[in-house]
C-alpha cells in the first residue's frame, strides 16, 4: 500500500519535473517565435520521452549523493528494511512530497527553481527527521566530488557562471560575425539554429532527469521486496517515468516559460541560439565528466549570459536576483516540507500515516492549482510584454506558503 503511494508520488514528481523544466529548453524559442508555443512544448515532450528511454544507465544510487539510506551497491540499508521497508518508504514518500510541493509553489510564482534541488532537499529533510543529522551525506568522504556540498551546492554556484560565460562569449561572437548582415538572413537562419540547439537540450534533459525518478522508484521496490536486481530497472518503471516527464513537459510550465523567455532579457534569435547551445554544451560536458548539475541553473545562466554578451541589451537583474534567491532557499525549503511530512507520517504511523501525508499533498497541489487560475498564464499570453513593476512582487503574498 505504501509502495503504491510512493510510486504514484514519484511519478507525480516526475510530472512536475517535466513541466517545471520545459522552459529550460523552449523558453527562448517561444519568446523569439521560432516555434509556436504548442509546437515547442510538443517537440520538447517527444524529445524528453526519447531521452528518458535512452537513459539506460542505472541511476539506482542517485540518492546516495545526499543521504545514507542505501549501501554503495544500491540495496537499501538493512536497518531500514527490517519492518518490510516501511521506514525507508516513509522517508522516500515524505521526501518526494517535499519536492513536489516546492516545485508547485515555485511554479505558481513563475520562478525557475531546480527540480533536482527540490528532490534532494525533500530527501535530506525527511532523512534528518527520520535518521538524524548523521543520516545525511554532507561532505562525502573526500575521495571524490560527493555529498550535499559536492553534488548539490558547489555545482549550483559554479554551473550558472560557466553557462553564462559561454553564452556571453557565443552571443558576442555571433553578433561580431554577422554585423551588417541583412535581417532576413539572420532572423530566419538563427531561428533554425535555435530549434536545433533547443532540441538537444530537451533530449539531454530527458536522459538526465527521468533517471532520478526511475532510481527512486526502483529503490522503493527493492525496499518493499518486489524487486531484487540492482543492475537493472524494471521496464514498466522506465516507461512510466518517460511518459510522466513527457506529459509534464507537454503540459508546459507557461508561467516559468514566460519568466525565462520574457522576464530576464528581451531575446532575439541569435541570442536564443547562443543560450541554448551553451546550455546543451555545458549539460553534456558536465554529465560526461560526472559533474552533477541542474538543467535549470544552466539554462538561466545561459540566458543571462546572452543578455550580457549582446551589445546594448538590457538585463533585468531584479528578476535574476529573485531567481537566485529562490535557488538558495530551494533545498532548505523542500527539506522543511519533507521533514514535516515525515514527522506527521511517523506520528500517525504505518499505512495510515502514509495515506495522511499523501492526502495533504493532494490538498496542497489542488490549492495551488486553484490559486494559479486567478492569474492564468498559458500558450495564448505567454509572450505578452513584460511589465516589470512591483505588481509582480505583490501578486503572491508570502503568507501563501502556509496554505
Amino acid at each position: 500500500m505504501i509502495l503504491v503511494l510512493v510510486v504514484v508520488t514519484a511519478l507525480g514528481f516526475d510530472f512536475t519535473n517535466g513541466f517545471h523544466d520545459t522552459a529550460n529548453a523552449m523558453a527562448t524559442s517561444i519568446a523569439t517565435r521560432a516555434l509556436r508555443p504548442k509546437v515547442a512544448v510538443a517537440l520538447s515532450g517527444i524529445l524528453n520521452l526519447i531521452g528518458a528511454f535512452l537513459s539506460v544507465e542505472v541511476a539506482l544510487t542517485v540518492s546516495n549523493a545526499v543521504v545514507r539510506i542505501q549501501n554503495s551497491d544500491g540495496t537499501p540499508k538493512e536497518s531500514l528494511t527490517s519492518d518490510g521497508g516501511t521506514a525507508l518508504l516513509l522517508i522516500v514518500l515524505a521526501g518526494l512530497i517535499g519536492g513536489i510541493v516546492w516545485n508547485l509553489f515555485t511554479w505558481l510564482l513563475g520562478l525557475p527553481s531546480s527540480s533536482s534541488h527540490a528532490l534532494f532537499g525533500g530527501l535530506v529533510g525527511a532523512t534528518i527527521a527520520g535518521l538524524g543529522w548523521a543520516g545525511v551525506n554532507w561532505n562525502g568522504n573526500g575521495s571524490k566530488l560527493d555529498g550535499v556540498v559536492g553534488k548539490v551546492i558547489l555545482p549550483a554556484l559554479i554551473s550558472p557562471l560557466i553557462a553564462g560565460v559561454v553564452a556571453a562569449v557565443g552571443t558576442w561572437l555571433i553578433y561580431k560575425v554577422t554585423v551588417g548582415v541583412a535581417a532576413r538572413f539572420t532572423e530566419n537562419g538563427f531561428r533554425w539554429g535555435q530549434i536545433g540547439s533547443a532540441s538537444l537540450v530537451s533530449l539531454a534533459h530527458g536522459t538526465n532527469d527521468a533517471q532520478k525518478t526511475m532510481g527512486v522508484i526502483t529503490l522503493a521496490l527493492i525496499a518493499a521486496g518486489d524487486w531484487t536486481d540492482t543492475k537493472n530497472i524494471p521496464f514498466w518503471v522506465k516507461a512510466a517515468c518517460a511518459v510522466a516527464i513527457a506529459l509534464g513537459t507537454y503540459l508546459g510550465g507557461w508561467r516559468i516559460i514566460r519568466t525565462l523567455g520574457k522576464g530576464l532579457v528581451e531575446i532575439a534569435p541569435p541570442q536564443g541560439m547562443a543560450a541554448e547551445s551553451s546550455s546543451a554544451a555545458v549539460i553534456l560536458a558536465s554529465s560526461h565528466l560526472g559533474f552533477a548539475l541542474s538543467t535549470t541553473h544552466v539554462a538561466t545562466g545561459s540566458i543571462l549570459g546572452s543578455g550580457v554578451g549582446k551589445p546594448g541589451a538590457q538585463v533585468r537583474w531584479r528578476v535574476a536576483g529573485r531567481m537566485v534567491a529562490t535557488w538558495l532557499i530551494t533545498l532548505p525549503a523542500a527539506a522543511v516540507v519533507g521533514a514535516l511530512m515525515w514527522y506527521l507520517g511517523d506520528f500517525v504511523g504505518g499505512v495510515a500515516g502514509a495515506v495522511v501525508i499523501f492526502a495533504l499533498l493532494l490538498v496542497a497541489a489542488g490549492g495551488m492549482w486553484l490559486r494559479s487560475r486567478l492569474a492564468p498564464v498559458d500558450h495564448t499570453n505567454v509572450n505578452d510584454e513584460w511589465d516589470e513593476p512591483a505588481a509582480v512582487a505583490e501578486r503572491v503574498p508570502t503568507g501563501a506558503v502556509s496554505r
Partner: protein
Amino acid sequence: MSNLGFALEGAWKVLLAGLILGAGLPAVFALGIRSMAFGAGGDAEVDHAAPHPVGRVVAYALFVLVVLVALMGIIFIVASGFGKTLSFEHIYPTIVDN
C-alpha cells in the same frame, strides 16, 4: 583533496568544452549565415552587390559541419547511455565500449 578542489578541477574542463562547443559552434553557424548573405549579394539590404554563388556553397558546407558535430553530440548521449563512448582514434568517430 576537498570537494572545492574537485569542483574547480571539473569546472575548468566544462568551461573549456563549453566554450569550444557551446560558443564555437554557434560562431561557425553565424559564419555560415554571413556567407549565405554574401552568396545572395552583399551583406546588407542597402548593399546591392552582385551575388556570389561560392558564398552559398561555403554556407551549406558550414551548416553541414555544425549539424554533424551536433549529431555526434546526440550519438554521444545515446552511446554513453548504453555504456559505450565515442572514440576518435581513427580520426572519424567510432563507437566503442566504455
